[in-house]
């Protein structure tokens, strides 16, 4: 492996004077023995899937349970009317993140980044930045390799599933990955990518996984909107020269220890947090019947 943690990843990029995406591609070649072109083409197919999920979600979808769907359309229409509070870029990002997660909830085709429940942050940020930065297709594919490099470090040093470490590990990781990749696409340095990821993840620490009825819908879809907006804010902070006082690898270590000490009721069991609220239980009863709801809670 060319890198085991963020500091080795940054070092590999700086020493060879290459972007993080290139470090990831070289490692993938070394690890799989596949030709570079094949790896690049495979990531290109994932990019196409993400673009399609965003499009489908912005056209409006509804989940089988009826718990989610249609919010991406509301956000898009609101943004297009103009005169918004958070501005066009942020609304574009979050509408596309929500679109992806609504498609996921409706059993559409998505690319897990890093999981299905957190699949909105990376494409939301990428396709939300597209009109602003006008990236080439190659730059967009590189965005995914950069996000993947940071995600791989989290997956191997902590966890990326809500069942293992709560939502901080899932949407937190996805948002961190997206912010690091956004910095690189905007022309920031490898170290600035790490700073953005650290600042995003720091703000996600402790976030629990408490899905209503155990389904990847409430609050997962909206948490992807919040995660992707934080990714953009952290990226801008880092590009402005703001740095994290706690280094990125130590933030990941903190996330791991917090995840380990989280009770199982707050790790994707649908038994605690929002799932255990009166409305959460009532929604579960509506979806699965009263017996199932009492089992859940």
């Amino acid at each position, binding site marked *: 492996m060319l890198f085991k943690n963020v500091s080795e990843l940054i070092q590999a990029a700086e020493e060879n004077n290459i972007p993080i995406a290139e470090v990831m591609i070289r490692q993938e070649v070394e690890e799989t023995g596949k030709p570079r072109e094949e790896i690049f083409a495979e990531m290109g197919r994932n990019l196409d*899937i993400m673009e399609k999920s965003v499009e489908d979600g912005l056209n409006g979808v509804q989940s089988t349970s009826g718990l989610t769907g249609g919010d991406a359309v509301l956000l898009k229409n609101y943004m297009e009317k103009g005169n918004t509070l958070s501005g066009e870029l942020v609304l574009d990002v979050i509408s596309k993140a929500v679109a992806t997660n609504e498609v996921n909830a*409706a*059993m559409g085709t998505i690319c897990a980044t890093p999981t299905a429940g957190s699949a909105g942050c990376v494409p939301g940020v990428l396709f939300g930045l597209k009109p602003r930065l006008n990236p080439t297709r190659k730059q967009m594919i590189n965005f995914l390799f950069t996000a993947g490099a940071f995600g791989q470090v989290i997956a191997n040093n902590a966890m*990326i*599933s809500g069942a293992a470490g709560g939502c901080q590990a899932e949407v937190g990781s996805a948002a961190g990955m997206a912010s690091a990749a956004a910095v690189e696409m905007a022309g920031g340095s490898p170290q600035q990518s790490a700073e953005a990821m650290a600042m995003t993840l720091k703000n996600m620490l402790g976030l629990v996984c408490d899905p209503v009825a*155990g389904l990847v819908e409430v609050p997962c879809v909206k948490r992807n909107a919040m995660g992707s907006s934080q990714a953009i804010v952290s990226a801008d902070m880092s590009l402005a020269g703001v740095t994290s006082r706690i280094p990125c690898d130590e933030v990941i270590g903190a996330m791991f220890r917090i995840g380990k000490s989280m009770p199982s009721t707050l790790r994707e069991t649908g038994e605690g947090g929002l799932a255990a609220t009166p409305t959460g239980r009532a929604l579960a009863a509506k979806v699965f019947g009263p017996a199932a709801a009492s089992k859940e809670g």
Partner: protein
Amino acid sequence: MKFRSVFDVIGPVMIGPSSSHTAGAARIGKMARQLYGRQPKWAKILLYGSFAKTYQGHGTDVAIVGGLLDFDTFDERIREAFQLAEEAGLTVEFIEEEGASDHPNTARIKIGDDESDFELVGISIGGGKAEITEINGFELRLSGENPAILVLHNDRHGAIASVTSVLADNKINIGHMEVSRRDKGKEAMMIIETDQRIPDEIMENLEGCEHILSVISISE
């Protein structure tokens, strides 16, 4: 290092909504189909734990049926799997089991036709990955991530050596191997995971070995 490829993190491409409840479930169904070797006429699927509680909302049921129809995790036909199963002459029954299971996401799949039937237990271990833990009553572990062969044989000395020597003669490396039997001296089962797919002519050699009753190949 559990996650060695970038596509473990940016991927897989899958039908939503849950990597463990949908994609992993489809993988279990597909492994059942591959091990059975043909499309069954009926399927009885017992769900345990979290699978039993939330299978309808997560599409675990259609995903398993999609797998039985040989669909991949990203195949959009998964959504219409019930209708497609009916059209293909596959009758499906789901049973929610109350009892406990070792793993929260467990399915027991019984499939068959007029000639024979088959049974396995599969678990979905997260991120779309799945494992088989029992085949026709034999306790075994099969990841489905590598090519593998499943050998039903008489529980006699030399049966294992005869199979492994055919593989050795053909320079096929074994990555993982398990042997399980229900009763001493009766039938036993071997699972052998290999680094490469085993060609058809070697499969025929294996079937001809002494004490070997049947050999099934499963690809990645």
